[in-house]
């Protein structure tokens, strides 16, 4: 199973080589067809690879589908989509080098990135080259980054919906404890958001436990948190969910569990028990979820995508598997409306749309109050709960609705952690 994937990685990364994946149909281009290149400057090796590589696989599936169907009509031209990838391994120097290469040498029309310090590092170049760039972490947006947008994942804002749902369906919970990795890009952002959401929901936060990336044993961390007897155990992290869940299980935690992600939850069930994981709340659905077929969802055939992905990459599904594709689809829509693939025009068209086609619907542009630019699309976001060993969407909460009422609380907690706000 390792080998085919390895070959795939190698071919896609070879000197930013053209990715024409195994799917032969993509080679059958219509006469006179042009190619538009879209860049993915993401981590494909190292610790952050799980938040890069699955996205590349996902986008490849989408691009292959589009190309197999004859490409996409933008303006007067018909285009094939080509994904150009560069592995920056979450290294600042490499991220900037890869970005400049894509923009200056590969002639890409949009660059998708994971976010965090790597986006901070390229932000200057995005403005200089006026290149449309996307991130999954909307906290990357600053007053100086008009070309940086977050059109899909609005980490960490969506976390409010899970807390809202929890408070509504489990009014008995009074206290919560938050555990996360102590980093400014992911953990602290989520922590601030959860603190704000709990405050709004009337749940008292009795402990915030921050730990480094060097933890090998979560037993003491979990023990110390459980000693505060919280009703809710909240994981504002994606990195250490499995070992934390395992410890909660062994230390006999009986309360509610809420988490940003629950990637590979079947493995967690294998390490704990089905009963224990049951009822865990998080924010990222599987794509075979029936509720994704409802109207208002802006993602073509989620079930089909899910099947294709799990067939070609059975062990690699993570949240980014559909997030980068959603951004890609969003961009294609924008380019169609703009009638061109030129970054500035697409960017302007996307942002002039008061009701952008957000993946879960209900989208609107937001962000000025917190980060200085309305460059984040917020809208509905799914609250996912494990039911009978399977992740199922319970409802779509409204991120925008919450922000309209409580953005001030969020700002307060962001500031309390030393995080940047306008």
């Amino acid at each position, binding site marked *: *199973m*390792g080998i085919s*994937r*390895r070959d795939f*990685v190698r071919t896609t990364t070879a000197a930013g080589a053209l990715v024409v994946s195994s799917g032969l149909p993509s080679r059958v281009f219509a006469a006179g067809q042009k190619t538009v290149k879209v860049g993915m400057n993401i981590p*494909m*090796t*190292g*610790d952050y*690879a*799980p938040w890069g*590589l*699955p996205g590349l696989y996902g986008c490849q599936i989408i691009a292959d589908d589009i190309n197999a169907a004859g490409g996409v009509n933008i303006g007067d031209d018909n285009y094939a989509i080509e994904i150009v990838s560069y592995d920056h391994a979450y290294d600042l120097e490499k991220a900037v080098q890869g970005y400049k290469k894509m923009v200056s040498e590969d002639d890409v029309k949009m660059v998708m990135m994971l976010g965090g310090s790597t986006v901070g590092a390229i932000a200057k170049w995005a403005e200089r080259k006026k290149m449309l760039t996307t991130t999954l972490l909307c906290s990357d947006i600053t007053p100086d980054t008009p070309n940086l947008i977050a059109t899909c994942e609005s980490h960490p804002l969506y976390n409010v919906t899970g807390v809202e749902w929890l408070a509504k369906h489990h009014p008995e919970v009074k206290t919560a404890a938050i555990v996360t990795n*102590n980093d400014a890009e992911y953990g602290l952002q989520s922590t601030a958001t959860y603190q704000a959401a709990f405050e709004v929901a009337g749940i008292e936060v009795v402990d915030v*436990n*921050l*730990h*480094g990336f*060097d*933890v*090998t*044993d979560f*037993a*003491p*961390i979990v*023990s*110390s948190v459980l*000693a505060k007897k919280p009703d809710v155990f909240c994981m504002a992290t994606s990195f*250490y969910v*499995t*070992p934390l869940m*395992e410890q909660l299980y*062994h*230390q*006999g935690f009986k309360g509610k569990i809420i988490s940003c992600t629950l*990637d*590979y939850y079947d*493995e*967690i069930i*294998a*390490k704990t028990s089905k009963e224990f994981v049951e009822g865990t709340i998080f924010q990222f659905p599987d794509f075979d979820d029936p509720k994704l077929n409802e109207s208002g969802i802006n993602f073509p055939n989620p079930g089909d995508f899910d099947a294709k992905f799990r067939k070609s990459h059975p*062990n*690699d599904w*993570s949240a980014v598997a559909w997030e980068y594709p959603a951004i890609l689809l969003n961009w294609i829509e924008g380019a169609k409306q703009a009638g061109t693939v030129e970054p500035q025009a697409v960017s302007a068209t996307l942002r002039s749309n008061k009701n952008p086609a957000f993946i879960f619907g209900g989208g609107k542009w937001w962000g000025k109050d917190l980060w200085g630019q309305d460059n984040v699309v917020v809208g509905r976001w799914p609250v996912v709960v494990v039911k009978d060993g399977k992740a199922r969407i319970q409802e779509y909460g409204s991120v925008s609705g919450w922000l309209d009422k409580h953005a001030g609380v969020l700002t307060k907690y962001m500031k309390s952690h030393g995080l940047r706000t306008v």
Partner: protein
Amino acid sequence: MELFLLSIVNGLIQGGFFALFAVGLVLIFGVMGVVNFAHGELVMVGAFTIWLLHAQYGLSYIPAIMVAIVLVTVIGLLMERFLFRPTRADPLAGLICSIGVLFILQVVATLIGGDGPSKQVPPPYQGTLVLFEFLRIPYQRVFSLIISVSALGSLWFFLTRSKFGWALRAVAQDREAAALQGINTNRISIIAIGVGAALAGLAGGLVAPLTNINPHMGHNVIITAFIVTIVGGVGSLSGAVLAAVLYAMFHTFMTVYFGGTVATICGLILMVVVLIVKPTGLMGVRISE
């Protein structure tokens, strides 16, 4: 009070694990004068072996651990023969060679397991030992504590009661004097790295079901091992065991009462303080003037 008891148990379990790999590092350093930077990767290889054989191919846990130990020992012996022995005159060259090995082992693990998410091994011993309602220890951890204590016990027995153990300690204290007394230092080096690597393999096998397994996991292991080694005294095996347990307790209690990051910073500061106050560590012997 409950939390206190629980933390002691957690600290002991963690301490046993720290001791397993720190003792190996000390043994190799003491006998060969080489800082084996790849020691964390030896633990990683042990853990990966469990993932591959046990979790992927369904081999039982205990045989998988055996294979892990043998495999890691073989890697250690190869390192001794082809890297450390030729560069013996020069400890720094040995260190750089071990960094080379570190790179190679990480890549091999990546090629086998892929770059994707961290690997998980379902615990072979399910269930939890409930001593009191507040004192619950997963059987997997009980197992790992028993095994690490008995491994360290056997090592102690070997070092104090056998001829080899005696020779090994003699070489660790003074290589030249030992050679003059007719001890075959090459053979002792082989035993040292063999035992050290085997313990690392065992540590990897024990930790596999308890943690995230990925090709880079050796990094945290080696940092902890350094701290333990320094605190315990570079040339002292009993110092390493004592320091492992003390440091694990220290880290556990700091984590419980002050948080994880603070615990790590304090651990590093503790190490620097020990270096300043007693550069030879808690049990270290003064190297002759």
